[in-house]
């Protein structure tokens, strides 16, 4: 786990659902094939209507044509981020596109669980809505241990809501590592042979 996450912000609004994060027609690529998997990065956030893509102005391309990685590393969202389907492709596609953390006012439950249990990205919750004071392209810095969010462009720092006991799974990497480290999975079940 990284202690400091830094990079450019990509700002979205409220109720960003999983069909906007990765439209259903793209759910067919393999996530185990390293080459094919890149398609998920390529189409990440491709369902977001243009006017809402990269606030406040909109019209900001998340992943440039021909690429599968974004120039942005942190998503700032409003409330109910990741609502909709249970598709794990949603946090996965954001990770493939290079997103390390989402900072939102609140999350839909399954997206939150998937992000943590699969170790795709860290879903931070904020005390207030930060989408109004963050612009797409602002330089951000997150201190994971201190749970603080700094907008280096505006110079403002906020304390985020505590990750609580979830931090244990994030530290371990994913639910499997967590279960192994805490003895929930017996050694016989851990034959992670290559």
């Amino acid at each position: 786990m990284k202690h400091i996450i830094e990079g450019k912000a990509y700002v979205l609004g409220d109720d960003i659902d999983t069909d906007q994060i990765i439209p259903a027609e793209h759910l067919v690529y393999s996530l185990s094939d390293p080459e094919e998997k890149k398609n998920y990065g390529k189409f990440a956030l491709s369902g977001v209507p243009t006017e809402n893509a990269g606030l406040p102005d909109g019209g900001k391309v998340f992943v440039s044509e021909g690429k599968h990685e974004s120039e942005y590393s942190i998503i700032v969202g409003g409330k109910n981020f990741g609502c909709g389907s249970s598709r794990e492709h949603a946090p996965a596609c954001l990770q493939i596109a290079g997103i390390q953390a989402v900072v939102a006012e609140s999350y839909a439950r399954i997206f939150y669980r998937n992000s943590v249990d699969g170790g795709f990205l860290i879903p931070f919750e904020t005390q207030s809505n930060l989408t109004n004071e963050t612009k797409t392209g602002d330089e951000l810095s997150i201190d994971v241990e201190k749970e603080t969010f700094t907008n280096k462009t505006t110079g403002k720092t906020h304390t985020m809501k505590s990750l609580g006991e979830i931090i244990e799974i994030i530290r371990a990497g994913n639910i499997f590592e967590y279960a192994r480290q805490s003895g929930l999975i017996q050694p016989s079940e851990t034959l992670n042979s290559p």
Partner: protein
Amino acid sequence: MDMTITEKILAAHARKEKVQPGENVWVDVDVLMTHDVCGPGTIGIFKEQFGKGAKVWDRKKVVIIPDHYIFTSDTHANRNIDILREFVAEQDLPHYYDVGTEDYKGVCHLALAQEGHNRPGEVLFGTDSHTCTSGAFGMFATGIGNTDAAFILGTGKLWVKVPESMRFEFTGEFPSYIMAKDIILQVIGDIGVDGATYRTMEWTGSAIMKFSMEERMTLCNMAIEGGGKNAVIEADDTTFEYVKRRTDRPYTVYHSDPDANYFFKKTYNAADMEPIVAKPHSPDNKALVKDCTDVKIDRSYIGSCTGGKLTDFLAAAKLLNGKKVAVDTFIVPATVEVEKDLQQEKLDGKSLMDIFKNSGCHIGDASCAACLGGPQDTFGRTHGTEVVVSTTNRNFPGRMGSKQSEVYLASPYTVAASALTGHITDPREFFQ
């Protein structure tokens, strides 16, 4: 004891006397369901984590139901089915409903019920957000991602944060033109798309308990559209009757205690309910149907796990019988059993299928079809700026295919009435 049904089921499966909302517990899983979209990813993670030769924790507790992308020429989608087949053969799984064979069923949430996998008191996880549908049977059921599903495949366990419960009571009796779909749209409109996040939506009251199992499933199906973790309705004679016809496996019935704690309680008078739509692009964008009659539509769609069951088609047929639709109308039975029922169930001596054909509807094969857009050649998928009135559960931008299309969610009565007039129409106009 002062626990809700959900707390009791989770306590029993965590082998504890009592659990509290907010507490994280590890529960034993009774059924894990997956389908063609998430199954291959789940299998991939399972092998990566538990080894190539690993066996699932209990072959009888895994249910695999291909239903999403099955009638398509998309090669990636078809490869997903091949991966499922290979895994089923290798693990010798008894509950697999393969497409293109006699075993094929259709949409997983209804198939689970029809094949006897929904049993009161059990814990069911599925790699589909509408797994909450099964809560209609007085069980704990919720959607999860591939990683969690792979974890269950290997261990038979998963951690759950015990949810707080919200109780929605409907007293009295619903008017004849009101369906479960109106009720869930009303409630989601009242609480918002995140109003039940992390929580249980528990349904109760005389009007609810008069609903058939299919209507109860509609109600529980859309709990996720309110952000809910699960929905639940106490099992009663209606439940026992349905389950008896599908399975002889024993089960346990739980009731909420009178002094159980609820995060929120609301009582509605059933007789006051009115037909509701959710306008684009959110299931909580509630409006009365009678206030939207100026909305012209290009298409109507009756299908999905929410609105593609026999009850839904009976309702639609009642209105369409002997009349012609004014716009393209798509009929998609959720499962093969519903498809058969459309041939067998009669209204005025005509089968429902004939009623739909005679009124000019397009009829698709049992599956999810355009409920989630899907590959370009999916039946009923939108491609442009269509305005659709639909019995499905989501109207997010692009959900039915095109980002420019606009979807209104409504009950089968409202969708059928609107199909006849070409604009959003209150079904009461056809009810005398």
